[in-house]
């Protein structure tokens, strides 16, 4: 008998379809009460993983432990896990009340209890008064909230959300992201959230897993995964990364020495003992630009501003380095315009503590359709 409720453990979880391995020996531990996201491009296996946990697919190998019990072969209607579907899947032939009450009716709860719990659930998602409406009469955001209420009313140990905000416009999505996060903290159960939108995952999660081609590339808190990517894929998937090809020659003074073209740089963010073919990564906001003619120093390259892009809150400068790479530098919009004009020669400074060296051996993710 365990006191935690909603702890998920995936042990060597594998799912093969005919000739495709959608989920490849995944190991994950999600403590109870966490907002956990599965992030990755289409075809990476995140939705399949979700469906395995929900019970709509059975694993080829491996275990799905819910609070210590393996539920891999338990049918979905007997798992204490509920799902919010991507298209909401509200029953078209039932109204809002009947949709939300559906699970309770299956559990044969008394009428009075159902009425009370539905009222509370609708209050939770701010849809009181909508009981008699049919789902076709609701907006996208409202449908999503009904789907939430319908799932949460059953007090599941875990709530699974399959890209629930995908069908909504940007502004509504942002608002609902905050609402969902607040809801999760209020209700306190484990939320497992699947998305391909890295910004969404970073904003809402306590921790997240980046998936690629059926495997988990990295697990960690948003800040960790963003600042400290362990693989080229993770670095490239979360935010712009300014990837450059280089040859690493091992550690020197605690930093990794790399050769880019004819330039030598040091990178001390991340592992220092990388050798051989490598990629260097630096976030646009850490790229520093100095005027042409500034005395040179370590980790500096000549370059020229190719394009200036105004993004509203910031200004993007696309700079062509002497190595041939196009780098993106991000500068806060201070109201004084871009610091450099298009066509201006500059000196690019890539501070060592912001420069990360990663082994290039990581294969590109194979896009599965």
């Amino acid at each position, binding site marked *: 008998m365990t006191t935690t409720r909603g702890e998920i453990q995936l042990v060597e979880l594998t799912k093969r379809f005919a000739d495709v391995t959608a989920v490849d020996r995944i190991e994950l531990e999600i403590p109870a009460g966490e907002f956990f996201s599965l992030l990755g491009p289409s075809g990476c296996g995140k939705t399949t993983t979700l469906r395995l946990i*929900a*019970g*709509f697919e059975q694993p080829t190998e491996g275990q799905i432990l819910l609070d210590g019990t393996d539920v891999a072969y338990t*049918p*979905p*209607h*007997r798992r204490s*896990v*509920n*799902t919010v*579907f991507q*298209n909401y*899947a*509200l*029953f*078209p*032939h039932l109204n809002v009340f009947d949709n939300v009450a*559906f*699970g309770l009716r*299956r*559990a044969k709860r008394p009428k009075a209890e159902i009425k009370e719990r539905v009222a509370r659930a609708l209050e939770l998602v701010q849809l009181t008064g909508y009981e008699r409406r*049919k*789902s*076709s*009469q609701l907006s996208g955001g409202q449908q999503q909230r009904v789907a939430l209420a*319908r*799932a949460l009313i*059953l007090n599941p140990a875990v709530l699974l959300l399959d890209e629930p905000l995908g069908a909504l416009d940007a502004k509504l999505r942002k608002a609902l992201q905050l609402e969902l996060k607040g809801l999760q903290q209020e209700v306190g159960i484990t939320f497992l959230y699947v998305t391909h939108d890295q910004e969404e995952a970073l904003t809402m999660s306590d921790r997240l897993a980046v998936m690629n081609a059926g495997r988990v590339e990295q697990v960690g808190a948003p800040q960790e995964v963003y600042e400290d990517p362990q693989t080229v894929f993770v670095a490239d998937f979360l935010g712009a990364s300014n990837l450059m090809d280089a040859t690493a020659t091992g550690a020197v003074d605690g930093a990794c020495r790399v050769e880019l073209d004819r330039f030598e740089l040091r990178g001390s963010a991340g592992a220092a003992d990388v050798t051989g073919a490598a990629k260097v990564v630096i976030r646009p906001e850490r790229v520093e630009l100095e005027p042409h003619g500034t005395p040179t120093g370590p980790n500096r390259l000549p370059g020229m501003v190719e394009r200036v892009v105004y993004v509203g809150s910031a200004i993007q400068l696309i700079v062509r380095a002497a190595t041939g790479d196009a780098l993106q530098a991000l500068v806060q919009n201070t109201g004084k315009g871009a610091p450099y004009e298009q066509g201006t020669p500059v000196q690019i400074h890539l501070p060592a503590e912001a420069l990360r060296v990663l082994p290039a051996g990581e294969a590109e993710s194979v896009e599965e359709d």
Partner: protein
Amino acid sequence: MTAVAEARRGELSALYRVRGWLRNPWARPRFLVLVTWSYVLWSLVPVLIAVQFSFNATRSRTEWAGFSARWYWGDPVDSVWHDPTLRHAAIQSLKLAGADVLIATPIGVLLAIGLARWTGWGSRPSNFLMLFPLVTPEIVMGVSLLLIFTQVFTFIGTGTIAQILGHVTFSISYVVVIVRGRLFSIGRQYEEAAADLGASPTVALTRVLLPLLTPAIVASAAVVFAISIDDFVISQWLSSGGATDTVPIRIYSATRAAPLPSTNAIATVMMLFTLLSLVLAFLAWRVFTRGERRARAGQTKDLAVFEL
């Protein structure tokens, strides 16, 4: 600058107007409009005339003599109401159609769901088998059924039972095609949602899938009714004589022998039955899917019914 532009525009518009008329992009459709409406008239007017003559006051089917309902119930000998062969034929037709609907619809619905979801060995040949009756010429089916009921299942022989069995055999495929189209547009999401919320597989099927399939079930029942009523070949080949003749058989023999306006009358009556059942099915479909259509933009899903 503006004055020049305006002057040039004036020139151009005169030229354009002439050229425009000659090169009128609507010219082609005018020919097509003619063909289309001519076709529609050619297609439907003969039937309308036939219906008109069912109300003819004399025995002629070619000379209009005034309006009369004698062929429907007036004439004490030859009207549909009084002529025993016609009445029996009508009853037989309705019997067969009713039995066909009651048997073929459930079998077809189950088959549709089964074929749509079944992925294992045997599903492809079964699907193939289901499609076959749709492309088999009726005479081939008539021959085969006649032989099977006279050589093998001789305890059935020809007659009403054989006719019913024959009707169901060709009707099942229509039900499957119609229900399958609806199944595709529903998808699995509702049953999964139901299961997710605690519904056992049985409940998911009966309380969620079946209600959502209702429009397709009603539509296919109406279609089965219509094709059964209008069926000629199978009914004729499996008929055991006068008592098991259906309306189409009567129309056939009357047309070849000595057609009376009562033939027109009974044909009109059956046609009304068919059209009525189809209208009801269509309305039922519209009512049931009203909410979904509001939520969805595209129309192409409905045409999926015609795709095998």
